[in-house]
């Protein structure tokens, strides 16, 4: 018996559509979120992540509806992030069918939000999304906000340590340098964050070759998130699982239908 590596397709949703770009710009349409979620569920995804990148209130309402419709037909865990600012926002998402939420900008602005959410719903619902990039900060990694466009002037490792102490249950570490490039996860960043945290770590940003996935696991990731390689058919989920399985990593057998 051992815990499987989780393969997590990520759906960046705006105004009811999945989009994907490179380094968070030049977004192109990648499909209908509910259909894609159902497909990934059938193909053996271990979990799904929706990141709401809508700028408008109407866009967020649409995403809430997407979450509701996805939860109707997919019986695997669903994490939703983007625009969460309060305990009330979390409550609405959980009632719509989310199992976990991820927070980012609002927690940087007001770190107590982490403890407020963890106290009410438990740490296990709360994923800290860290959009980090290489910089001249103390550890060499800094936190960004607003989809990587602005520096938060916070050292990434110091932020992870603080957030863990406040009660996050998991870390989604997204490399803004690698995002959408398919040039590989930022291994140095994963290693550094793993060294200062004891909660599960999801590697994100840069997945391209199959060997990128195992490299992130070797650096200490517990779960692997990817978007464009799945959306654009470069790999099927089962390709990743077969590759990892043949290299002696524990994966959940997926039907691969």
């Amino acid at each position, binding site marked *: 018996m051992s815990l499987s590596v989780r393969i997590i397709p990520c759906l960046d949703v705006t105004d009811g559509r999945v989009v994907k770009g490179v380094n968070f710009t030049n977004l192109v349409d990648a499909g209908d979120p509910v259909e894609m979620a159902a497909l990934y569920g059938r193909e053996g995804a271990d979990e799904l992540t929706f990141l709401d990148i809508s700028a408008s209130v109407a866009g967020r309402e649409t995403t809430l509806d997407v979450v509701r419709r996805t939860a109707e037909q997919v019986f695997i865990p669903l994490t939703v992030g983007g625009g969460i600012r309060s305990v009330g926002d979390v409550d609405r998402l959980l009632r719509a069918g989310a199992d976990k939420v991820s927070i980012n900008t609002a927690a940087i602005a007001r770190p107590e939000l982490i403890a407020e959410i963890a106290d009410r719903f438990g740490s*296990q619902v709360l994923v800290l999304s860290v959009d980090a990039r290489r910089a001249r900060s103390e550890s060499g990694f800094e936190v960004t906000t607003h989809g990587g466009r602005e520096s938060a002037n916070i050292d990434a490792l110091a932020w992870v340590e603080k957030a863990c102490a406040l009660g996050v249950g998991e870390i989604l570490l997204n490399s803004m340098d690698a995002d959408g490039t398919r040039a590989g996860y930022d291994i140095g960043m994963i290693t550094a964050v793993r060294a200062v945290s004891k909660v599960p770590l999801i590697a994100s940003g840069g997945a391209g070759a199959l060997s990128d996935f195992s490299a992130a696991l070797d650096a200490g990731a*517990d779960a692997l998130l990817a978007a464009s390689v799945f959306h654009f058919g470069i790999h099927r989920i089962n390709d990743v699982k077969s590759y990892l399985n043949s290299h002696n990593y524990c994966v959940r057998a997926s039907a691969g239908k």
Partner: protein
Amino acid sequence: MIAILDYGSGNLRSAQRAFAASGKDVVVTSHYDIAMEAEGLVIPGVGAFAACMVGLDSVKARTIITERIKSERPILGICIGMQILFSKSTEHGIHEGVGIWDAEVSQLQAPILPHMGWNTIETSADSILFKGVENESFYFVHSYAAKEKVGKVQSWSIHGERFLAAVEDGYVCATQFHPEKSGDAGLALIKNWTQSL
């Protein structure tokens, strides 16, 4: 009809959908009489043990659980809904549970917590719940668990140390994992339970 107990905790919507997929009528309720009379009662739960006990007491769940067992009416506890059936938990202090099983729920000794993700299970040949899905993985999200043998049939898993993944004890069944989030294997397990009612 299956009742899912609403005491302010849990992914009630997910649970409702998954149990409805077994073909049974499902209601989400905090009403005492409905919870008492249902063919099967599901006690879901996410969050902290103490907060869940407060919520359970607000809907007289201790009485519902003990009376249902006395009158031979099945119960299924999920995650915290399993843990509260034990006599106590050491999560953030010592808290008293419903006490169906006299054992303690304590933190898993593991390098990474919570235990989050899909894990396999060492099932018993006597298990009804795992019939046909003995070798599948199920989705866990928890940091605390019971580690002593209780009830008639036990299934085990490992994260850092060995712990009880499920207990089948006559009219009371419980799973530490989330069958409602465990894909087809979870739906099959739920169906095994609803068909046993």
